[in-house]
């Protein structure tokens, strides 16, 4: 009987408390949102399950927890804390992204730059609240709406905040269809939402091949700290466009990115152990994350309106919202909103230009922040 009671004392039923229960509910909610509501299921399902994994109560010292050196989860988590997974995800993103619309009308890239305002204003806000500069920089990067970049920078600057920042980044990315439309509608008139943009020109194969090389050299010369992200992003794109490395591109955009996404999602989720995650800081991070997304969306839309003062072929300012780099969700949201007002207005391809530019912009911003935070 004593053995039975002793064993029972080590089970989850005996060790469970309110904090673990709460985190398990959060995990279940993310799984529900992913499966039932189709909000970023490829991310929310592994992350949600990871939260369950990380919050199963257990005794310490048996090498189970993600934070215990030598545990299986700890080995898998190595890819997060050393910043290995995000560049690999960028490789896959590069291999699946078509930059044609951006190459066809490069002016729209500037919308991707404007939307990065969310990062820096949130950085300021986090400093104001009292976060240390490296923490503030990691929180600010949530405004880039780029999960891998957020994880990459946070792993370097504030690894103790990896859990809440990555959950906030991915949750808000999943909630783009909920967060962005009210801001877009608030900042535009009906007439502006009805603007039809001219067809983009056809982009040659040579342009597509030259772009990743030129893009890589230029961006890394300007922001060398972003080298791991840009090298993989542009290599992936070169593999896709070269035409002679289709096998590698195919692997990068399917098997590789899927494997890394599973490992990243699971370990990031598992890193949200209740005692680490449920702190007042996490609450602030979630609030600032929402603020970051809002500012990023608004900045993109307002900048599109500003550009319209100077350009001959008008830009539908809704596409400014796609400057946040949640690819391709924010571009889809733009299409959805434009479609509400004009069933025959197809702005998706135009919105993809600031969308992919946003990926580049947020990675540059991450490089700049990293540069300033490294002592």
């Amino acid at each position, binding site marked *: 009987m004593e053995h039975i009671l002793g064993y029972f004392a080590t089970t989850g039923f005996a060790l469970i408390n309110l904090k673990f229960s709460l985190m398990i509910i959060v995990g279940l909610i993310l799984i529900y949102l992913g499966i039932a509501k189709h909000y970023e299921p490829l991310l929310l399902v592994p992350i949600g399950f990871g939260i369950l994994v990380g919050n199963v109560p257990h005794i310490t010292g048996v090498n189970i927890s993600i934070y215990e050196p030598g545990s299986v989860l700890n080995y898998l988590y190595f890819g997060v804390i050393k910043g290995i997974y995000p560049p690999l995800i960028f490789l896959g993103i590069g291999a699946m992204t078509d930059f044609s619309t*951006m*190459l066809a009308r*490069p*002016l729209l*890239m*500037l919308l*991707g*730059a*404007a939307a*990065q*305002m969310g*990062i*820096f*204003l949130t*950085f*300021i806000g986090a*400093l*104001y*609240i*009292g976060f240390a*500069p490296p923490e*503030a920089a990691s929180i600010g990067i949530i405004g880039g709406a780029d999960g891998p970049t957020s994880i990459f920078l946070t792993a370097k600057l504030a690894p103790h905040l990896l859990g809440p920042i990555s959950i906030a980044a991915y949750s808000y990315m999943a909630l783009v269809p909920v967060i962005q439309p009210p801001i877009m509608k608030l900042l535009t008139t009906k007439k502006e939402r009805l603007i039809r943009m001219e067809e983009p*020109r056809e*982009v*040659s194969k*040579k*342009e597509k091949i*030259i*772009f990743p090389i*030129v*893009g890589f050299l*230029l*961006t890394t010369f*300007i*922001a060398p700290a972003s080298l791991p992200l840009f090298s993989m992003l542009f290599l992936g794109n070169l593999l896709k466009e070269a035409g002679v490395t289709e096998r590698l591109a195919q692997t990068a955009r399917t098997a590789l990115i899927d494997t890394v996404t599973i490992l990243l999602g699971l370990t990031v989720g598992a890193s949200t152990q209740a005692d680490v995650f449920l702190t007042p800081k996490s609450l602030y991070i979630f609030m600032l994350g929402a603020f970051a997304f809002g500012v990023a969306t608004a900045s993109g839309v307002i900048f599109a309106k500003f550009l319209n003062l100077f350009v001959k072929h008008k830009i539908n300012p809704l596409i400014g919202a796609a400057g946040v780099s949640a690819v391709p969700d924010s571009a889809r949201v733009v299409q959805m909103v434009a479609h509400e007002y004009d069933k025959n207005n197809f702005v998706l391809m135009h919105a993809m230009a600031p969308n992919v*530019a946003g990926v*580049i*912009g947020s990675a*540059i*911003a991450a490089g*700049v*922040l990293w540069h*300033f935070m490294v002592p």
Partner: protein
Amino acid sequence: MGFSAISNANGWEITIVGMGTVFFALFLLFLILSNLHKVIVVWENKNNFLSRLFKKTEPFPGYKLIKNEPYIILQQAHHAYLLYKLLNHEFYLTDLYDLAKKRGVEISDKCIKILLDKKIIIPLGRQKYMWNE
């Protein structure tokens, strides 16, 4: 905490430099990409462009045949060619002389003779001529 925390952490400077860098990088990329397709067109037609760039322009067809003649003859031949462009493809010499007179330029018989000798101007019969282009 507060504005002093922002200042102490150089928050304003980092924000300005950060946004500036993002804009600068994407603006530079925008400039390059805006012109990339034009550069590709030039590259693909580089032989044409180079030959046009370095080709010695001739003032009129057949210039090489009389390039050792005195300058005045070359100048008159050039004028003759410019006037010929205003006439019909087949022209009368009298029309050429008349037009030269109207325009106040001189075209000597000697010049016309040289152009005929070198077959730069070709007689077509019935007193009509054409420039051998």
